[in-house]
């Protein structure tokens, strides 16, 4: 049994100290996941706070402690969605003029991509619609498998797979468009109706 699953069992048995293990394991990545979804720091903090409160209150309803991760992400995503909608999130159109990312935590290879391309990707990510951004973030940042994403979002596996594919396609298209704009190249139009369906 993993450390997290064991902590879940202890928490279910009433051992409140086990909560700190779960917090240590998930708080930071949950905060950042929520931020990537909401694009709003305050909303992300509130989402994490709300999610952990839900863990305290409802962990007993989790039948399989091993499935804590998708269960927890489901709470995070739901809270992030709701708070984001309630707060009318400010979505910076020009991220370059706002927060500069901290690249110190990245590997040399990652840093080698160049801050310009990362900025372009960040802009493209921010422009994705909510559904696409969620699957991208869960897959590529939170590291959930497609099965886990399906469980988290309550979607069929096939839908997750196709949505991921469309989200990635849309992201890369936007990335190309962003880079083309900055370099003055023409941009091919995209079928936005297809993106809305996903």
């Amino acid at each position, binding site marked *: 049994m993993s450390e997290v699953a064991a902590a879940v069992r202890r928490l279910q048995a009433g051992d409140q100290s086990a909560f700190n293990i779960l917090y240590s394991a998930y708080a930071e990545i949950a*905060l950042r996941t929520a931020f990537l979804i909401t694009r709003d720091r305050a909303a992300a903090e509130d989402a994490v706070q709300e999610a952990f*409160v839900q863990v305290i209150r409802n962990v007993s309803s989790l039948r399989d402690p091993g499935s804590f991760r998708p269960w927890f992400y489901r709470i995070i995503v739901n809270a992030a969605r709701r708070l984001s909608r309630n707060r009318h999130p400010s979505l910076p159109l020009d991220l370059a003029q706002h927060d500069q990312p901290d690249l110190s935590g990245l590997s040399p290879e990652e840093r080698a991509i160049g801050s310009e391309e*990362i900025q372009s*990707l960040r802009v493209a990510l921010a422009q994705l619609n909510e559904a696409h951004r969620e699957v991208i973030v869960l897959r590529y940042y939170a590291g959930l498998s497609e099965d886990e994403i399906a469980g988290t979002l309550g979607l*069929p596996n096939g839908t997750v797979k196709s949505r991921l594919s469309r989200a990635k396609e849309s992201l890369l298209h936007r990335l190309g468009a962003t880079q083309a704009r900055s370099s003055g190249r023409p941009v091919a139009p995209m079928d936005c109706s297809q993106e809305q369906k996903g």
Partner: protein
Amino acid sequence: MNDDQKIITALKADASQVQLPADLLARIHREAAPPAPPSLWSRLRIGPKAELVAACLLLIALIGIGALRNLGPDRAPAGGGQGTETPGTAAQSTPGQIAPGTGAPQCCPAEGHLTAAEVMARFTAARLDPRISGDLGTKLFGATQVNTIAVDGENIVVYTFADGAGAEQAHRTMSDPQAHTVGWVGIPRFFRMGNLVVQIDFSNRTVAEKLQAALFTGQPRPDPKADSGDLQWVPTVEQVRSAYIPGQPKMPDWRLTPEAIGKILAMLQTAQLISGDETVPPPPAGPVGRQPLILTLELISGDRITIRLAGDCETTSRADGSQVTTCKTAEDQVLVAVHGRMMRYRAPELAQWLMNGWPSDVHR
């Protein structure tokens, strides 16, 4: 580096902007144990006049019960445990316990022993169709049992303690005044009821008020017509300065004749308060061309009452995961907004008037 790695890198870089706040863990613990309201009655928003009326009614009831016990041919011995329990007599028999066969339970006993099933019965009495879970097995705050009650789309958690002292202690733990702000709408969440602590979390004030009223009285939210506020809820014709339906842009409003105002008020008098959300239906086709059609009554006091057709919405999920919400006009139902509250009524005549009847009762 391939596309996937680029995406991961960009996400990492983007996410690196945020750091865990140092106080987040403490906030979580505070939020998990939020405060109780200083005054139940004030939180229920009954108002001082209604409180006075309630106190008088309680007094009359106590006197009446006492008289019946003394006058009845088979009166119970003094301090007997049978018969209707009231908050005022709770300490004399089994404190706070709901006696069987007494109908709707009394409001908010301070002591005594209640069960989650009895709490659920209050929602049943209020026609809210609750569903109760078994014991969840979580012994949070030292509870001997924890149940949830699903009611009206919300979850209520009932913590059962061995005695009132245990509930009181847990309630104090939950009542951290620092934990009352983030993410909620200022609605009290933890109520001590005898040996229970009942947790009710809502994001919607209207739902909260409705369920709180049901929880503490076993009745639906009081009919606003009986609310003795500054304004009698349904005014007289003399109290109405004007009534109108907004016209098309840049066109005068459609004004109701005095006879029509009287007709509308009569329809309001017979309207029946019902549960349901405050959904407005999609615009129906109509000669005004500017819908939804809203009738506004402007009162001499400066208050306004607005009346419109109610709607019902249903959200369904498609195979691809997207959701579609469809709304339609609710048959014979209207939404009435007054004093900042919107309520749903069954009023067939009024609904019909809003649909078809109004053109013959208005003039420019």
